[in-house]
Structures are given as C-alpha cells and as structure tokens.
C-alpha cells in the first residue's frame, strides 16, 4: 500500500475510534433519559420520580386483573419478578393486554403508592410460533 494511502486509512480509523468514543460517552451520560420506562424495582426502591408523569414497565401478574365496577376501571399488579407495583387504569386496553404479558403504562404514583395510569401500551415479546406449538409448550411446563 502506498504511504499516503496508508496515512489516509489510519486517519479514517482514528476518526471512527474518536466518534465511537464520543458517542459512547454521550450515550452513557444520557443513559437514564434513554430508558423508555422504569422497572417496578425502580419504583419500590424510590428511584422513580414522584409527582410527575413517568412510564412503568413490567409483566401483568397472573390472576391480579380485577374490574371492581361496571365502568372501565381496571386494577392489576405489575412485576419484574422481584418487586410488585399495583396499577389502576380507566380506559380501553390494547388487544395484547392479558395476564402474563409485558406492558408499559404512563402515569404517576399517588400517595397510596398506587400507580395511576393514563395510557397503557402492550409490549409484545420476540417469540413467534403457531398456536399449537404454544399450547404444547404450555402443557410441557405445567407439570413442573
């Protein structure tokens, strides 16, 4: 390789390393802001903001969904498999909302420590399979 070409190649390499480092530091600095939602553990440990809107993500605990009245009010519990938070929501739920499903809710904590949601989004998982396969997987898991 001719020397001036080698020099240009090295310059490009250095430029890429520099930009890569800059991007890494910038993203590290904004790490908190880049999180789309807080986990339920964050809320229990008090890391989530008080008095302001934030998003809470977690799995809807099986058997926790209750509809106390005839209106749209729903109560359920979210979990990240270590800590749990109760959620109240009044409105129409997305199609994929069901027990055992991951969701992201936007709202605020009230003084009882209940998360009052204004919006509920379903977070679907990365698994795709035909219903028969899902059924047989479930059957295999149940005896445990």
């Amino acid at each position, binding site marked *: *390789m001719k020397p001036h070409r080698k020099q*240009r190649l090295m310059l*490009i390499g250095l430029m890429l390393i520099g930009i890569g480092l800059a*991007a890494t530091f910038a993203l590290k600095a904004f790490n908190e802001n880049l999180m789309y939602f807080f986990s339920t553990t964050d809320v229990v440990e008090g890391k989530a903001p008080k008095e302001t809107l934030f998003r809470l993500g977690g799995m809807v605990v099986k058997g926790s969904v209750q509809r106390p009245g005839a209106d749209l009010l729903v109560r359920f519990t979210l979990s990240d498999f270590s800590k749990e938070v109760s959620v109240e929501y009044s409105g129409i739920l997305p199609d994929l909302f069901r027990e055992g499903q991951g969701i992201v809710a936007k709202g605020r904590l009230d003084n009882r420590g209940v998360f009052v949601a204004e919006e509920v*989004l*379903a977070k*679907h*998982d990365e698994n795709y*399979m*035909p219903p028969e396969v899902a059924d047989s997987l479930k059957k295999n898991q149940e005896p445990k």
Partner: protein
Amino acid sequence: MSIIPAPISRFFHKTASPPHFYALADKLIPWLTVLFLLLLIPGLYGGLVMAPADYQQGDSYRIIYIHVPAAWMSLFIYVLMAIMGGIALVWRIKLAEVMLISSAPIGAGFTFIALVTGSLWGKPMWGTWWVWDARLTSELILLFLYLGVTSLYGAIEDKRDAARAVSILALVGVVNIPIIHYSVEWWNTLHQGPTVSKMDKPSIHISMLIPLLLMAVAFKVYYAIAVLQAAKLQLLKREASAQWVKSLLEKPQ
C-alpha cells in the same frame, strides 16, 4: 510492496473502470431480476399464505415479512455505504463514490418502509403508532442520515468534492448502526428484543422463519438490481464527456 496479489488487484481495477462496470451491470441485471422473482414469490406466498398464524398476534404478525427484511436492509446498506466511503477516501476509486451515492436513496426507501410498516404494526399490537423509545428514534435518525447524504451530495457543485464530503458523512454516521442494533438490549424499549439473531436459539418457529429468510435474501437481490441501475445512470452523468459514453450513445440499439 503490496499485500494484494497482482492478478486480483488487476481484476479489481478492470471491474472498477466505468465502461467495464457499465457493461457488467447490463449483463447482470436480467439475471438478478429472475433471481429476485424466484425468491420473492415463494417468500411472499410462504409468509402470507402458508405460514401459520401467531399464537398471540394472529395474522397481524405477517407484516414481519416486510418490516424485518426492510429494517435489516436499512442497516446493511448503510454499512456498505460506509465501506464504499472508506474506499473512496483512501483509494479515490470513482466507482466506490458512485456506488455510495447510488445506494443512499435506496437505503432511505428501505428505512422509510421499515418505519411505516412498524408504525402500522405498532398501532394494533402496542396500542400506539409511534413512541420515542431508543430503537424507533435511532431508526428515524438513520432515515435522516440517508437523506443528509443525498442532499449533501446535491448541494456541492464539484462532484469529486461532493463525493469526499459524503464519504466522511457516511463514515461518521456508521456509529448509529450498532446503536440501532443493540438499542433493545442496552435500554428499556417498547420494541421487543431480537428474534432471529439470538445465538442460542431463534425464537421464531421454523415454518415462519423460512419465508422470512427468503424475503430477506429477495430484498438483498432487489437492492443489487436497484443499485446497479442507479449506478449506471450516475456513471453516465459523471462521465458524460468520456469517449466510452459517446460511443455508447452513438451505437444503435
């Protein structure tokens, strides 16, 4: 002193010469078109008709057969553009500049398709058209990078200078590619994690995976066709005063 053996280097120089490349592209395009249709038709039929419905999303998940291949292409084309940019900067090969600039609108198209199909998929499944989570935002930035490459190239009069500026932009923007790919693992996002590229086991059933891979290869072949067409036009424009273009235009078809 060279690390590349002389015959290979000669082959590259010959292929990269504009008249030679022009003729080669002409020969390749019909074959690639046949290959594209041979992949696209079974891919679409397999994905939209033969593949079973999903256990949770029903038939709605079938948009994956457009969304995911388009999203993969949006990343793939950008990486190719950055490589072309590097080659153009170091070796000053005109063909690399032409390939870079011809790829940008195609990449922008795939990014746009990925964003629109993702939005159409998000509404029924997540309950929203758009959220500012890390995956969606970084993919939107990718669209702006593609548009930036095209407009920067158009804004500079001298095309060799323009190509150099665009090469640097393409190289700078390449840091966004790992960010897009790993965004779903580094941060909490509404977008779910990777399905196919998981090393331990892909979490998609084999009957759904095969049409998806067919579509992915079909999209790659489509890109090859489109970029060769665009590169032919760029070469004619850039070399308008060259002898080979004149003799090509005078030659009766």
